């Protein structure tokens, strides 16, 4: 069977069957004014050889910089087997398979993925993945409003320590559905949620409090106190977490007396490379009692008529192809390929391996912090425990320093000027297990030179 859906002969035969002379006539109900007559600014096509040369030249221009960027996407070592297996033809799809009889391998991968993510977060059920960390926050917010039986509030509390990109995505996705996000400031000494400011919201009707751990600044929030406070106010707790950190931090299910209600996060650190901002994937887990409010789909393990184990999609009756406007979300499929990579990554590392990645990343960042703070004109913006990122403040504007270091092949950090102008000349830096002590020293030396 040919891959092309229809040949010119097919097209002619189809047009003849319906009695239309040509394709133009078929579309003549589209008004002239709405038709595109060729695209401006799109250059003519290139041959495969030409495009190969162009991309090689561009890749050379990018170089292989030493990256200390974090802020939501993290460079981790990815064992070669992860993508060698993920890109096998049998897995090579972004979509969740509908036909259980033809898709047992993919369905089992999703089932294993769900099992691993529930194990990391401690909550009972996981869906088959979401688009990314930001859309996961939006979906969690919508879910909290939907699942909250006692409160009909459309308002949520989000801390200023939540990744600003997540806040923007949540606002553009859920804001247009009537949700309101009220921002809770952070405390200037610790870089954590200001609990006094939070307390002023006591007694108000909010559907949920979002807590990011570690927070956008890399600082560790007092998740137990925050969770208990929110629950005492009748709010749900939405935990936004870094999956790598869960190998060494308390899982959201154990936050406070009752644990978080919904847990979401960016899955990129689990085997997905940094590549121009995506594609990544989001994850989501919750308690069993909220499973029917959860967006997306779930793969379940079951038995067939003869009692043999098998895997199948379950709980999709509330998705948009069945529930239309009343669906739990517009997410019917998932980030299958990235989820596959994450499952293989987690399988290869195992719990001990993931904990090692987390520990080494944390201690590398601590070493980097010591080296950088020793440079005159550099100080840590916040005190208190951290994971693998921290905010540094400089005496001079960050943008110029970053540009100087970039010329030396070092991507030194994320400029916080736009999102956190009150922090002055501040940047967010991160070191993972991919950085050697020599790399850290090279950064410190280059920074010393740039500030001289």
């Amino acid at each position: 069977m040919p891959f092309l859906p229809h040949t010119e002969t097919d097209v002619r035969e189809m047009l003849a069957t319906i009695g239309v002379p040509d394709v133009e006539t078929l579309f003549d109900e589209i008004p002239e004014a709405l038709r595109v007559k060729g695209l401006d600014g799109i250059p003519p096509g290139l041959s495969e050889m030409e495009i190969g040369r162009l991309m090689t030249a561009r890749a050379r221009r990018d170089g292989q910089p030493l990256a200390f960027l974090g802020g939501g996407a993290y460079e981790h070592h990815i064992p070669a087997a992860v993508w060698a297996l993920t890109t096998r033809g049998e897995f090579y799809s972004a979509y969740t398979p509908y036909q259980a009889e033809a898709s047992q391998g993919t369905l089992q991968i999703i089932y294993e993925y769900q099992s691993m993510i529930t194990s990391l977060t401690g909550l009972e059920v996981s869906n088959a993945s979401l688009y990314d960390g930001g859309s996961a926050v939006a979906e969690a917010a919508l879910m909290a409003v939907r699942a909250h039986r006692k409160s009909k509030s459309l308002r949520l509390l989000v801390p200023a320590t939540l990744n600003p990109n997540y806040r923007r995505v949540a606002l553009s996705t859920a804001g247009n559905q009537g949700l309101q996000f009220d921002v809770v400031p952070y405390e200037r000494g610790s870089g954590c949620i200001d609990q006094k400011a939070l307390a002023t919201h006591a007694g108000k009707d909010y559907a949920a409090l979002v807590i990011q751990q570690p927070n956008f600044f890399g600082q560790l929030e007092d998740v137990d106190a925050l969770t208990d406070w929110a629950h005492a106010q009748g709010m749900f707790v939405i935990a936004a977490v870094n999956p790598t950190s869960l190998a060494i931090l308390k899982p959201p299910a154990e936050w406070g007396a009752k644990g978080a209600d919904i847990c979401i996060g960016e899955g990129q650190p689990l085997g997905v490379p940094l590549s121009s901002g995506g594609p990544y994937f989001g994850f989501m887990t919750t308690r069993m009692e909220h499973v029917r409010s959860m967006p997306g789909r779930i793969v379940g393990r079951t038995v067939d008529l003869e009692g043999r184990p098998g895997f199948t999609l379950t709980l999709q009756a509330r998705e948009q192809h069945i529930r239309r406007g009343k669906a739990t979300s517009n997410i019917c499929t998932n980030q299958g390929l990235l989820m596959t990579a994450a499952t293989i990554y987690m399988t290869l590392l195992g719990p001990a391996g993931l904990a090692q990645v987390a520990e080494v990343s944390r201690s590398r960042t601590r070493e980097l912090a010591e080296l950088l703070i020793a440079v005159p004109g550099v100080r840590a913006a916040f005190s208190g425990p951290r994971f693998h990122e921290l905010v540094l403040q400089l005496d001079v504007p960050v943008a110029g320093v970053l540009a100087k270091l970039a010329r030396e092949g070092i991507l030194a950090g994320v400029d916080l000027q736009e999102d956190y102008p009150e922090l002055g000349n501040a940047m967010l830096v991160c070191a993972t297990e991919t950085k050697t002590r020599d790399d850290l020293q090279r950064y410190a030396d280059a920074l010393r030179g740039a500030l001289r």
Partner: protein
Amino acid sequence: MSQVLPDLRYAKSHEWVRTLPDGTLEVGITDHAQGALGDLVFVELPEVGRVLEAGAACAVVESVKAASDVYSPIGGTVLAVNEALAATPELINQDCYGAGWMMRVQPAAGAGADLLGADAYAAELAAVGG
């Protein structure tokens, strides 16, 4: 032909209403509705105390093939819901007019004036081939 009980009143959207001795109303879905849905796997009921508007969605019944809204046949306030449906939604399939009741409602003044009698509802069903 689905079962239609003579002593109940009905909404065109396939809910039934029973007047209890104390004047409160019991509500469920009809035999026709449960048959069309197939095996139920989940029922979402309103909160006790919620004020219902006649004709507005008040519950969701989910079967292996679809999730559908249940519309309140009358205006009023929810007094109680059938908690047994949380663990055993199949009660609706097995006994939709009895153990499969969904909620008890304190009717608003004048509620239920436009409900159908058993004969009229049976005629509706006959018209749609149910």
